[in-house]
């Protein structure tokens, strides 16, 4: 469990430093981005088919693929993980990202109903 937490922290650190997709300006967009991009990233890491029907799908996928490429090249331990474990890891990661960018965020503008 400690190991998982530590690994999640590494991935979280990578996302927070290198990515911008988790920082859209409103809570609903952040939720949407986190959900879709991390879902597709999980599918990519688990060699599952990824939906690419709509332009939005392709956009999430571009961010997701860019992310998983970095994960795989930076964190060698990923290769040794089972699909179940990866899913658990990514689920934990999503919870963390949701927390730091949405539910735990101190950004008072996230709930402004207008852009």
């Amino acid at each position, binding site marked *: 469990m400690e190991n998982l937490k530590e690994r999640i922290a590494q991935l979280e650190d990578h996302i927070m430093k290198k990515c911008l997709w988790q920082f859209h300006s409103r809570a609903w967009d952040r939720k949407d981005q986190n959900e879709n991009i991390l879902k597709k990233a999980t599918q990519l890491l688990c060699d599952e088919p990824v939906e690419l029907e709509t*332009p939005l799908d392709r956009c999430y996928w571009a961010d997701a693929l860019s992310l998983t490429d970095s994960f795989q090249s930076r964190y060698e331990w990923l290769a040794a993980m089972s699909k179940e474990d990866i899913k658990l890891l990514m689920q934990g990661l999503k919870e963390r990202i949701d927390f730091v960018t949405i539910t735990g965020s101190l950004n008072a503008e996230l709930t402004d109903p207008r852009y």
Partner: protein
Amino acid sequence: MPYHEFECSKCIPERKRHAVIKGPGEDLTHALPLGYLNTIPGSISERGCAYCGAKHVIGTPMKDVIHLSHGPTGCTYDTWQTKRYISDNDNFQLKYTFASDVKEKHIVFGAEKVLKQNIIEAFKAFPVIKRMTIYQTCATALIGDDVDAIADEVMEEMPEVDIFVCNSPGFAGPSQSGGHHKINIAWIKKKVGTVEPKITSDYVINYVGEYNIQGDQEVMLDYFKRMGVQVLSTFTGNGSYDELRAMHRAHLNVLECARSAEYICNELKVKYGIPRLDIEGFGFEPLSSSLRKIGLFFGIEERAQAIIDEETARWKPELDWYKERLKGKKVCLWPGGSKLWHWAHVIHEEMGVEVVSVYTKFGHQGDMEKGIARCEEGALAVDDPNELEGLEAMMTLKPDVIFTGKRPGEVAKKIRVPYLNAHAYHNGPYKGYEGWVRFARDIYNAIYSPIHQLAHLDISKDEIPVDKGFQTAKMISDVKLSGEIVTSKTLRQYTGKYDSVSDLRKKTYPEFKKSERSE
């Protein structure tokens, strides 16, 4: 202790929640400076107004437009020729600015008539230009002139012209950011969808939040063109009015400065389903990753990769020459908005400098989230800094260089801290691979300037070295480097030209065939 209290601001305790030190093991949920709140009067903040955010920052980079401010001449004069957003039509928008010259009698009796005359006169003076933007100012907003009605009237009488009105008087918001917002929303509401573009590629983007500072946009467009991507419009640097009316036809919005232009991307997503992809033109790795993502989106990632490989091979040895010499140098990253996060991590990773402080003049909390997430532990993050706080921070942090605006740069100069212009750049452009090397070169030249070194010598007290007729930057920077690095055959100093942009305008590009199916 997450929040940081400046000595000089103890008497205005509300300032305390505007500054944070990024503590070890802390994340964004522990502390975040307040942002985008009304400025404390008399604090000598560095903020501008909502008029300048609309007119000066976002409106005026549009190149084929008469930019008319409805008010006394001061607003126009003051925001004219203070930026370095160039354009490939001989900088028309930099050279010409228009004011309706509202005088006292108009304040009393209304200035709508005078505005109409102004519009007609301006088109008459520049018969080739058929597009105009009009910006409300404090005075004309307060007297209640109906600028939209006048614009409609003229458009009816002169069907060949098109006019955009932005109602963003100086007082409309805590800072220039209020104006960014207003012009974003006004543009999508009033102008997007009113022109149908010619689609020439299967891959069509809007390039948003890019202002062509010293040619940034043209550098990035070079990459997009090499990928066969059609850039329908740029919002707004080097951008064309009618192209921006056709934004609704893009397949993808590629967004750089989310601070000033995310609104229009968000609205375009809601209204037309166009995805928003946040990208970065600064730094080898973020730029490469951005080009790759655009390539992935369109299924042309090999074209992106070819550019990445070519450019990296050409410029990386030069970047690394500077990185070796900039390692450990302390930097205050004190820009207006987006560079806070665009630069925070990548100057550390790719140039080796330590960001000891970030600040934002007009950013929102979202910008601080990004900036703090990216900067290193221990960095001081300040929202809406003021003169004394800036000085106090420089005195305690002792940076080797700061990136800020022109006037705060003069403050830094006096305490012997060199500055680089974070808004307008020193010798930019700074986007693109070559641009990033230019940035590193400028930082190096600032820190290792022999004159800067002399500023630390007190001839009345210090031992004066009499054995040196001169020093070069290299003599200073290379003292502590290993022989291997100093004599490296692979690393080299910048080899580009003074003007790295003009040649791009003459370039030709391979033709990529457009498939039958699209559009």
